[in-house]
């Protein structure tokens, strides 16, 4: 600056205007660079699948792939349902239902873990809420953990017959995805 003035000069105005223009332009150009990494249209288009439940016998489980994630569908036995109902909600490490079909603050009772009180069918995203491994318990010979549901071999989380975390480092119950019964023996996930 050649001389000191108390009033802002035209040069000050130009400096601030050019600086702001560059900052806004830079920020606007940055956003596409960041957003390009988010799930793209082809990933979003795989959002729903339909699953036929009729071949799944009582006591059996199947795994289907939804959005690249495994979804566990278990046809629960009466005994398993009984076992899950016997637990008090305040004894659970995570007392929230984690069911995308009902409001977020619902308690993790057994009935809140299924859809439309159809308690035979338990549908879960089969991803451990700790660090994303696939828990064991879908196959006949698998370790099912101390609570008869699923057991994650990576860091030792135990889930019960309603897919609720009971023991181990996982912070939340297994997520129940959004799904609906299209007919008595068919569901649409997503």
């Amino acid at each position, binding site marked *: 600056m050649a001389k000191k003035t108390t009033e802002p000069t035209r040069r000050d105005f130009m400096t601030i205007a050019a600086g702001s223009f560059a900052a806004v332009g830079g920020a606007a150009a940055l956003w596409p660079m960041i957003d390009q990494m988010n*799930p793209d249209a082809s*990933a979003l288009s795989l959002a729903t699948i339909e699953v036929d439940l009729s071949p799944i016998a009582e006591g059996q489980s199947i795994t289907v792939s939804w959005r*690249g994630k495994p979804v566990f569908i278990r046809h629960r036995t009466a005994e398993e349902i009984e076992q899950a109902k016997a637990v008090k909600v305040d004894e659970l490490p995570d007392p929230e239902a984690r069911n995308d079909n009902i409001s977020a603050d619902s308690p993790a009772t057994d009935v809140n873990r299924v859809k439309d009180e159809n308690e035979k069918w338990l549908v879960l995203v089969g991803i451990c809420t700790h660090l994303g*491994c696939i828990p064991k318990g879908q196959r006949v010979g698998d370790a099912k953990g101390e609570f008869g549901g699923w057991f994650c*071999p990576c860091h*030792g989380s135990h889930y019960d017959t309603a897919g609720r975390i009971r023991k181990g480092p996982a912070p939340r119950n297994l997520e129940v995805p959004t799904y609906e019964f299209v007919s008595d023996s068919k569901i649409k996930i997503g």
Partner: protein
Amino acid sequence: MAHASSYKPNTAIEKWLDDRLPIARMMHDQFNDFPTPRNLNYLWTFGGILTFFLAVQLLTGIVLAMHYVPHESLAFDSVEHIMRDVNWGWLLRYMHANGASMFFLAVYIHILRGMYYGSYKAPREVLWIIGVLIFLVMMATAFMGYSLVWGQMSFWAVTVITNLFSSLDSIIPGMGTGIVEWIWGGFSVGNPTLNRLFSLHYLLPFVIAGLVVLHIWALHVPGNNNPTGIAIKAKSDALPFHPYYTLKDGFALSAFVVLFAGLVFYAPNFLGHTDNYIEANPLQTPAHIVPEWYFLPYYAILRAIPNKLLGVIAMFSSIGLLLFLPWLDTSKVRSARYRPLYKWFFALFVISGISLGYLGAKPPEGIYVILARIFTAYYFIHLLVILPLLGKIEKPTAMPGSITDDVLGKKPAGAR
């Protein structure tokens, strides 16, 4: 950069270039006539060894990328194609995979040497900080490279490590999940993830190379530390870098490369996991997920803490804290040679690190969890409590007057 230039252009063309771009002068002053303490031991050769392995990784990596296909359904097969069909592909890949291990072995020795001899203390704080940054970028690069194989261990390592960010959900609900899906480019680890990891795995080594230039620059301002921790005071304390240290570095490098060759030719999969020769399967997790050996101590720290978010914070801060080491250590004495107590605490620190490495490979149950907690506790207590207090309590032993005095075995005034 402090010493006077001794470069003399001999020919007309050298003189012509020197007036326009004095690059030959810089190389001469920094890597030929650079004054280097005369008492450096073999622990000081690892900087050179690391530079060599960066070059090995860059060269083998660039040619491997000519044959590799970063696609979820082709990646695993293209790696096998490299192993079986590509001329010398097996050699290039085994060099690259084992080169990463050698790189980490050398960097751990290099870091611990700096910690033992107080190389991070004034005036070398910036040098040390750049070093920690190189270490961080190295870890990211190694992790991404491992994922490219797209075997079961690769896939599940990516899943577990990227899921660390989901722990942020406990601060702001949804933030962690949002970040994880942003990293994945989908709702699970998949093709978009593999593609971006490949892109970044190719980029980051060049970032490391840039940081190495800054690291050497920051080294050449104060010059090398040395086993006494005493600065160069007289001409007799120093030797020109070439031929004295080019030779010493070269000899150590040759010995280290023998170890490297031993692994590459006789035990190329010794440090790997058999599960990674099974193609990635998003619907099945292997029974035991274990990271590569060089990440085991951090993995043990992560698992030692029962809370997910705190475990993640502890794991990252175990390295992040090193950035503050120059200020956590309050002792004015650099070298552990003259610090009778620090020596022992340093030994405990090394034992903790190695033990955590061992425990990281064990299943997280019973006695292993308890031991991992004890050693994790010591790791942090060492950095946050012992180092700040020790500098105030410890009475250093008598130091020699200069590097020359030490080399010639002159007893320090008022010696032990």
